[in-house]
């Protein structure tokens, strides 16, 4: 069986359902590189996703996987992490999945701050359902549903995450595989909820945000930027012009939800049946 291999690669024969030339492939290899370089134990990692083209990513990594419902990767990841704080939990899903259907979980997972990494394949479109506008679609993009072009304000994941006081907020571009890998590594190393919004061309349905477009419309987070400064991070995230790539905001030291909400670090499946004396003590309360 392939899971005996000590690598994150799936067997050669695996039928990858992505389109040739898609940015998803670059992100997948950046992810493999990051996981390998971090020397993460494949049996103690869980990749969690929702549904979409991006949501298939965990199918192509040789590790534990929870491929749940569209939009619901974050609560599932939270549950996994709370049940077993010894697992490394990485969420990988689409912009529609995390910011659209799953928007409420995006907000409230950040409020909790579990130690999970959230990688969003942000192709600014709904890929799997064939090209409707997504929360991050640019204004004016014409689609079969948005026949007169997208009219809604694009969702700015970095700005909102910073407003939510997420402790680690980064953007990357799948076209820069090295940088993406190293940002993912930082994010996984970070203790707390780390968001990496990865810009990624969809070569079939998004003819607006192409490789060339991203080349022109991105820049690096300026050297002088202080990722510890929330207002500066917000200003950077919302500034007109090219999208800044890199770590926009980073604040160490906040306790994680599992530290605050769990009772001990023992994985739940290893806990013993409730102690009989404690049980009788509880009953005594209702005498």
């Amino acid at each position: 069986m392939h899971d005996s291999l000590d690598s994150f690669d799936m067997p050669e024969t695996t039928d990858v359902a992505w389109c040739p030339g898609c940015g998803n492939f670059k992100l997948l290899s950046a992810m493999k590189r990051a996981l390998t370089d971090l020397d993460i134990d494949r049996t103690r990692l869980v990749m969690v996703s929702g549904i979409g083209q991006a949501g298939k990513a965990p199918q192509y990594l040789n590790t534990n996987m929870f491929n749940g419902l569209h939009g619901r990767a974050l609560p599932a990841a939270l549950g996994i992490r709370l049940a077993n704080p010894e697992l490394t939990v990485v969420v990988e899903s689409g912009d529609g999945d995390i910011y659209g259907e799953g928007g409420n979980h995006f907000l409230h997972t950040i409020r909790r701050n579990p130690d999970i990494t959230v990688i969003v394949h942000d192709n600014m479109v709904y890929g799997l359902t064939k090209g409707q506008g997504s929360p991050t679609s640019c204004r004016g993009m014409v689609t079969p549903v948005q026949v007169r072009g997208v009219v809604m304000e694009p969702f700015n994941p970095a700005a909102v995450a910073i407003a939510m006081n997420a402790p680690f907020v980064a953007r990357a571009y799948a076209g820069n595989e090295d940088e993406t890998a190293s940002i993912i590594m930082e994010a996984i190393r970070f203790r707390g909820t780390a968001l990496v919004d990865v810009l990624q061309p969809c070569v079939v349905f998004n003819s607006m945000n192409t490789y060339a477009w991203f080349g022109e419309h991105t820049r690096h987070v300026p050297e002088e930027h202080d990722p510890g400064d929330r207002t500066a991070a917000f200003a950077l995230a919302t500034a007109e012009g090219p999208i800044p790539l890199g770590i926009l905001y980073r604040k160490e030291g906040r306790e994680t939800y599992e530290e605050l909400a769990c009772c001990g670090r023992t994985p739940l499946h290893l806990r013993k049946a409730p102690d009989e004396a404690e049980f009788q003590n509880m009953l005594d309360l209702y005498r």
Partner: protein
Amino acid sequence: MPQDELSVVFEGAAGQGIKAMADILAATLKDCGYFVSVSHEYMSRIRGGSNTAQIRITDKPRTAYTRRTDIYIGLSAEALRRYHERSGTGSVAYIEHDAPSDGVPGKIVTTPFSEMAAECGSNRYRNTVGGGIVLGMLALPLKPFITHLEAAFARSGTDAMKGNARAAALGYGWGEAHQDGGMPFSPPVDTDLAVEHLLLTGTQALGIGAVAAGCNFLSSYPMSPATGLMTFLAAHAEAFGIVVDQAEDEIAALNACVGASFAGARALASTSGGGFDLMQEGLSLAAMTETPVVIHVAQRPGPATGLPTRTEQGDLSLVLHGGHGEFPRIVLAPGSISELVTAMQQAFSSSSRYQVPVIILTDQHLLDLATTIPRSVIRRIGSYPSIIQTACGYRRYAFTADGISPRGVPGYGEGIVRADSDEHDESGLITESFEMRRRMMEKRLKRRTAMAKAALPPSAFGDPESAHTLFLAWGSTRSLLEEALEKTGGEGCAGLHFSQVYPLPPDVYRLLQGRRLAVIENNATGQFADLLTREAGVVVSHRILKSSGEPFAVEDICEALREISNA
């Protein structure tokens, strides 16, 4: 002849401490050696309005709600109107009022609650005055009442403790002085009640069941009448190592439970109908990924927001059919406090054994009901099914004879554990093979056979084997069926109560065929009757239904039983 039961009704606005006082009085009466049960009904508001608590004092365990009112303590501005609704010729009311009481059948003792409470230092003590009156009137000892009051108000400071004690004594005096002939009542029936019985609400019973079952994870969003279970587990979380997560919504709650269970937790979600609507996709996910999960659905009257604090059994069809696609599930509908303790444990054990979602269906009336139950009845039956340590090459959905695959969790062993919401192969990876799909559907559905075989049989009242008319109940109406049959059961009548409604045990079909069937359901359409027709092909000729938001009173059922038996 002394009466063998009494019904004491406390009425008051939200915020006047009706519920607290009824509970304390019930505990006191238990200590005096009586069986007690308390039924609560209340409005959807935090202050004001009019709520009631009915304390039934009986010489044997009786928990059904009754129309009977012997003693009525009315504190709100609505006290008289509500007394009017439920008083009989034998009733005595203690009400602070001067309004005309034309047409009220019972007696009224105008009682200066406010004045007495003020004497003790605060208007807040009116409820305690009421408690004292009941005990004084019944000539029961005051002492245990004071003890319970002290325990209850220990954290509120000495002033409150003293004030309450004083109010109890004042009320007691008033009750003695205004006995109105008194209420001849059988002597205490069981002096062991004080020590060998607990006084539990439905919610507490469920919570105890969950602890006993080794539940160690709850994610839920507040919703009446389901919130209490979350609160219970939060209170005991530290002692038993339970992770309690208040989710941002019901969708998150169930998905967190499924995620947690995938990673090895014993996970529970608690909600009501409207919240369960939102959990259906998650239910379908649990089924598809074969992840055990227990969902408590606490019914209240719908549709939509309906009557959020009232009672109904309107969501049976929903829990039977909710969630898209086809998959097996188990639905339990415990009918008594002790069944609640057991059902929760059975839910966890069946959910783990069959790797299916299990739903426990309760309702407001049952959850808020408090009653005495022998401590010995609370047994820990939970088996702790093993999660296997995986080896290299582990396949989460390996085909087996009964369709159930050994369950591994990530990080425990050398295997890789994959759960997939898409159709998948044995290793959990996505597939589009029609053949694999066919086999996986078969695998998931196959376990239904074993599940049906292991289904809990109904409880029988009377002799169903020889009866020509069977009265059928499920969930909270159990005590009504039992008491009404005892009181009115004609020749050839018997009752069956189903604490498991799905799947039904196969031999129930035999029991039901060829008899006259009547269901008792606290809903408008008779959903259980429909289920029986669908599952057993039997026709239910009589439906005893109610959907006003109130529970049935035992008198309603007695009457219906008489009518149907004589028809």
